[in-house]
């Protein structure tokens, strides 16, 4: 049986995807039905439409045959410029064999320009947009002046005849209705500009595209309108002849710039909206100057202003030394402004450091920060990102008895362990431990171990006890392996551990701001989990005790098959998921039955789903919800909470209202909680149960709650019980 998945890998499916995406990619979308709508719009002019489709198939097939990346082909990157070129040519020239030859050549040319620009601009992480189309169509237009066989098409001039030919009376009536609509001039110009992207200079095409754009993205549609009107106002303010705006059909430059800057290449936000509007006058300026300049060789300007401004702006913002969170470039492109936004809102805190080397606390048990970052004493200037740790007794003191002896101090002699895997890169030993109150200012760091975790990531542990270091330079140590004992050597008047991250391999290097991956903070009755955080002064912290059973159950390896029973009120669903890793080294669970995938990361302490793609009625979606964020710990009385990207929890339609204002205000929200069982935890239990719940919030009303009971037995996740409760509370 040939399933969709086998198609996925056989080639037919990506090839079809590539054809469709060549249409939707013009609006930065990868939505198949939006593509179908756009294909339909191009077919309003059937000859042009067919020519466009032909060019798309041709250039994609050529790219395929020449062995280019199938993933890129499937995304439509190599088709949309050929499409635009062919549409343009077919609209302007009378159909003939000569035109066919030109279209074939144009498709090839546009493909090669696309590939070359991808190579050149790709190095700077820049898109090539519709530059290949511009190069192609200008070259062809310039050349065709010498071709006798090609003559200008007159069909476009007699639009009604054309429409009648396609759809008879109804089509004509629909068209008449569309122009008779009581739209203001500006709105009509907006729709015409949208249609002009596909060389359809009429409102009907524009309205259809606008409808498609609405369903593709509310944010994109709102930005297309905003930037269009910004340009409109600019034209009026500068007293430009409005007919230049309306009948030049270059209004789409503003629309596309608005979408590209405001919604697509940047995470939609107030800043991105502001920039989209601010850049519009610049696009207009370039547009008008290009019109005057291109007047000489009699070339249309097309999308040149859009291309120039978008590329300039993206490149310029990439060079920022301090990239701001308010105007953030999209790092992982989901091809939907809403998804980009909702994912970013959650990932900003949740996954920002998820791909870094996890650094743990370098000790066992609960210690207290006696001097934090930017401390009052020595953690200043270049050394400001460091911690001093001590142990406090139940009376809140660092020592017992009178505190006059080193051994009175709770931390003295306690084992210091490696914060992460690494190689010992520097060691200082043999510096005697000071008496209490005395600081050795000549050997500032005292006995020190420096560990290399990565080319530019080192950790340094100082003031260790004399001759307590158990490792030597060049040793490979695992995270949690004992290194030495806490002592009082160097500039240390009382026993404590100095811990810092740095990017160079010496004792005494300047510090590096780097968070502790996961730790427990004991502020109140129950411990609280902190992820990728910096323990602050006087905080009592400990490592998260890892749990072998959970680590085993969640240690998914590629090729592993997971069979989990999903129980919900009265029904049982058996599942079969496979673990895969893709070419980006992202791991995901694949559900063959629903063609869904759930991407995850696991740093040994925490298992997290990062993204879900596919059918929300599937069992995989249930597991995505139930196991969204699982701490692999043997901790008691701990609740881990998190938040979902909105589009993963709410249905697309129910978010339409929220989408429009999402960059500014979020009225909807969601929360995820997982609880760890019992007062204490067993030694390698063969059964474990975790409880998680998901709730949604609209304004202050909690809408729906799903509870999950996750059963772990025999080293794997064996069953998930789900129950839904509806509650209305404020």
């Amino acid at each position, binding site marked *: 049986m040939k399933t969709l998945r086998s198609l996925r890998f056989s080639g037919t499916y990506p090839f079809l995807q590539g054809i469709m995406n060549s249409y939707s990619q013009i609006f930065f979308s990868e939505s198949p039905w939006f593509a179908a709508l756009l294909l339909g719009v191009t077919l309003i002019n059937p000859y042009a439409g067919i020519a466009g489709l032909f060019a798309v198939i041709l250039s994609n097939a050529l790219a395929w045959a020449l062995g280019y990346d199938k993933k890129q082909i499937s995304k439509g990157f190599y088709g949309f410029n050929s499409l635009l070129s062919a549409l343009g040519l077919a609209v302007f020239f009378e159909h003939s064999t000569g035109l066919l030859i030109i279209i074939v050549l144009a498709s090839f040319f546009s493909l090669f320009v696309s590939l070359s620009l991808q190579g050149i601009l790709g190095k700077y992480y820049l898109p090539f947009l519709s530059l290949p189309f511009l190069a192609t169509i200008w070259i062809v237009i310039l050349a065709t002046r010498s071709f006798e066989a090609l003559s200008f098409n007159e069909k476009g001039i007699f639009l009604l005849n054309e429409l009648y030919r396609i759809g008879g009376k109804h089509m004509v009536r629909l068209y008449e209705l569309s122009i008779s609509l009581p739209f203001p001039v500006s709105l009509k110009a907006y729709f015409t500009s949208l249609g002009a992207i596909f060389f359809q200079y009429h409102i009907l095409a524009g309205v259809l595209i606008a409808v498609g754009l609405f369903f593709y993205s509310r944010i994109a549609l709102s930005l297309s309108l905003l930037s269009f009107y910004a340009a409109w106002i600019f034209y009026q303010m500068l007293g430009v002849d409005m007919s230049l705006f309306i009948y030049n059909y270059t209004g789409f430059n503003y629309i596309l710039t608005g979408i590209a800057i405001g919604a697509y290449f940047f995470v939609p936000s107030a800043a991105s909206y502001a920039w989209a509007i601010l850049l519009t006058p610049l696009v207009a300026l370039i547009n008008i100057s290009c019109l005057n300049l291109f007047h000489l060789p009699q070339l249309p300007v097309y999308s040149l202003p859009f291309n120039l401004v978008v590329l300039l702006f993206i490149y310029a913002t990439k060079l920022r030394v301090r990239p701001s969170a308010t105007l953030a470039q999209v790092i992982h492109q989901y091809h939907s402004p809403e998804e980009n936004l909702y994912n970013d809102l959650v990932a900003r805190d949740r996954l920002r450091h998820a791909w870094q080397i996890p650094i743990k606390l370098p*000790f*066992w*048990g*609960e*210690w207290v920060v006696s001097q934090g970052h930017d401390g009052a004493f020595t953690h200043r200037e270049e050394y400001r990102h460091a911690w001093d740790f001590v*142990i406090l*007794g*139940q009376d809140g003191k660092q020592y017992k008895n009178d505190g006059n002896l080193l051994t009175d101090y*709770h*931390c003295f*002699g*306690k*084992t210091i*362990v490696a914060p992460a895997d690494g190689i010992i890169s520097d060691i200082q030993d043999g510096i005697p431990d000071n008496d209490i109150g005395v600081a050795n200012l000549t050997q500032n760091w005292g006995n020190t171990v420096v560990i290399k975790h990565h080319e530019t990531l080192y950790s340094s542990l100082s003031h260790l006890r004399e001759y307590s270091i158990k490792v030597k330079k060049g040793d490979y140590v*695992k995270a*949690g*392996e*004992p290194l030495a004992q806490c002592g009082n050597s160097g500039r240390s008047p009382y026993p404590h551990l100095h811990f810092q991250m740095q990017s160079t391999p010496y004792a005494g290097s300047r510090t590096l701001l780097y968070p502790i991956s996961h730790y427990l903070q004991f502020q109140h009755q129950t411990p609280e989990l902190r992820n990728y955080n910096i323990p602050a002064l006087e905080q009592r912290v400990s490592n998260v*005790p890892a749990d072998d059973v959970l680590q085993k159950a969640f240690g998914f390896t590629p090729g592993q098959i997971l069979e989990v029973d999903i129980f919900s009120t009265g029904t049982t669903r058996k599942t079969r998921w496979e673990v895969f890793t893709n070419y980006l080294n992202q791991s995901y669970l694949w559900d063959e039955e629903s063609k869904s995938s759930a991407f995850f990361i696991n740093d040994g302490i925490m298992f997290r789903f990062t993204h879900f793609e596919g059918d929300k009625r599937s069992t995989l979606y249930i597991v995505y919800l139930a196991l969204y964020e699982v701490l692999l710990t043997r901790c*008691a009385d701990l609740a881990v909470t998190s938040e979902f990207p909105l589009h993963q929890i709410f249905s697309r339609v129910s978010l339409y209202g929220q989408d429009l204002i999402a960059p500014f205000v979020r009225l909807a929200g969601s929360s995820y909680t997982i609880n760890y069982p*019992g*007062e*204490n935890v*067993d*030694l*390698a*239990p*063969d059964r474990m149960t975790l409880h998680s719940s998901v709730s949604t919030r609209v304004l202050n009303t909690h809408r729906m709650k799903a509870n999950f009971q996750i059963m772990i037995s025999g080293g794997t996740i064996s069953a998930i019980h789900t129950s839904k409760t509806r509650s209305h509370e404020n």
Partner: protein
Amino acid sequence: MEKLPFERPFIKKVSTGLPAKFGSKKRIEVIPDIEGIPVSHLMADYGSPLFVLSESTIRKTIREARSAFSTRYPKVQFAWSYKTNYLDAVCRIFHQEGSWAEVVSAFEYEKAILNGVPGTRIIFNGPEKSPSILEKAIMNNSLIHIDHFDELYALMELSRKLERKPRVAIRINLDAGIYPQWDRFGFNFENGEAWEAINRILLSGLFDLAGLHTHIGTYITTPSAYRTATAKLASLMVEIQHKYNHTIGYIDVGGGFASKNTLRGSYLQGYDAAPSFDEYADAITSALINSQIKPEHLPLLILETGRALVDDAGSLLTTVSANKRLSNGHRAVIIDAGVNLLFTAFWYDHNVAPTTMNTDNTEETTIYGPLCMNIDVIRPAVILPPVKKGDHLVIQRVGAYNMTQWLQFISMRPSVVLIDINNKPHIIRKAETVETIRQQEQIPEHLQ
């Protein structure tokens, strides 16, 4: 004018000059209240004698012990030794603090289950385990510590019958360099019996050998003995790994930490002689860390500490019944609590303190219990101020073993009160009445 309190007359040798080798005059500690509640109020409300336990002292002690170990070793688990004090309220405090249960009989096992401890968190020790309770322990997946070969055979039979793999550990006795060597429990390390047992367990394939257990003795004042014992278990663990490629999940070093009570005949006061939790923890954890166990295989360290965790939290409040002068002129006091309630009086010199002190004069006194038995001596000699009938005395550090080993003998057992962390008293065991005792009895028809 208020009447001054009466002080009975006595004769005392006046010592002048420099202090003798026995030191200067002993200062007497006065204990007017327990956790802020006056002793007289407690006794008025709950009767005399009265056992009082302090919840905050229990919690403080277990936290101190836990901190001593958990800052030295990554995986530490305490298991509350039920026999030390199995009053449900006490057990539940320890379970709340994260302790598992360590039981040594079917009775204690049932008690732990009733206290809500999951079977998987019960360590089942002891030389006597009936087939029925073993069966229950196997089904609950409890940690069964095998004491002798006959138990091993019984477990093999049960394992086959139930088709379950019991989770077991073996108890090992070893020479830790101290006297007496407790060799009556478990399998001996030095003579090879331990290996014999390990071989049988692992070759049979019937068991999940989860841990190794030793318990070197009680009231051990030399932490180095624990170092030796732990090092021996660690080496055994490495050898098992080497021979069977089997990783032992935990090492249980048992209990035996000394409390701050003074052993009878000890020259030093218990307060000075008993090592701190830090000293024990340092010995035990450094033996593990410095062993040949690979860091990724470091076992869970289980501690069955009982006495050192609860002794300090308990006090026995008593009332003076009478004063006496013995034949040799020695002063004696009779109180209303005897050795039937204070079993530990046989081996400890319990600190006995008055609740008030109106004088600087003290006298060596013998404290007798109320039993009509010659052995009923609480303290043969203790320095006390003159007390009279109706005065209260507080006997300190009685939290361990007394509330489990006490006897209903001659009189009934009194109430036990727990003072919670907000200094509010709660009865956790009601005083026995005649009816309590009688309801267990049956009278044959011909005697009715």
